[in-house]
């Protein structure tokens, strides 16, 4: 008989993390393991004299502040262009939708369409699909 104990990666009061080790650049996956994006930054909100992490931020607009100097400003400029095409909202995953933090950051089953692939969608529409023969590829 196999006995399953509590999930050690599950979020629970008292658990502590290193932001760099446990969160930043970790893969974000759906509850079924489907890769979604990676953690590019965390949104922080001040409340009652404390600072709370309130959301996972994904995409080039989230990554740009972590890149220093001109590279960061260039990535941010690209992100603004993409955000304008998408309606101006950078992708954000509310922390309440994060169920577990381990080798990957796993979302709860109820998390809906996140629309986090703006760069991938733009590249597919404006670069890949314009390559001769692109529509012949399988899959």
């Amino acid at each position, binding site marked *: 008989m196999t006995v399953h104990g509590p999930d050690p990666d599950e*979020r*629970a*009061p*008292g*658990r*502590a*993390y*290193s*932001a*760099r*080790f*446990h*969160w*930043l650049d970790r893969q974000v996956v759906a509850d079924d393991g489907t890769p979604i994006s990676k953690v590019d*930054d*965390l*949104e*922080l*909100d*001040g409340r009652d004299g*404390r*600072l*709370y*992490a*309130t959301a996972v*931020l994904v995409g080039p607009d*989230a990554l*740009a*502040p*972590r*890149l*220093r*100097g*001109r*590279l*960061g*400003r260039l990535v*941010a400029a690209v992100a603004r262009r993409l955000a304008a095409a998408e309606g101006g909202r950078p992708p954000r995953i509310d*922390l309440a939708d994060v169920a577990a933090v381990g080798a990957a950051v796993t979302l709860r089953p109820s998390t809906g369409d996140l629309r986090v692939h703006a760069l991938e969608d733009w590249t597919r529409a404006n670069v890949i699909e314009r390559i001769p023969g692109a529509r012949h590829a399988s899959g």
Partner: protein
Amino acid sequence: MRLADLIDALVLDGAGDLAGRVTDVRLVETADGLVVDGLVVSPKRRGRLLAWDHRPVERPRILGAIARAGSRRARWVPWDAVASHEPPGRLGDLGTVRLDRASADLVPLADAQREWA
């Protein structure tokens, strides 16, 4: 604000002297949410690569020795020691964190990690 505003930020102690840069942020789950518990601050560039708020590397011994050497100057700054924090003035620049105490009053990271274990 964002975590990126804290990571790599310049840290000034109570006297206004440069204490180092933020190399990591410790987050703790509470009943009210995921809260910033404090900062890991390293004065030397070498230490910034190795000073993380994570279980210290013990084995293999040579890696443990390298990790200890790289992070021995790292200090733990509990969030209540932060007097103020300012985001970068321009994207790509560094933020600033100001402490309410002198650098000499900060606990070594290794001591803090032992308490957390």
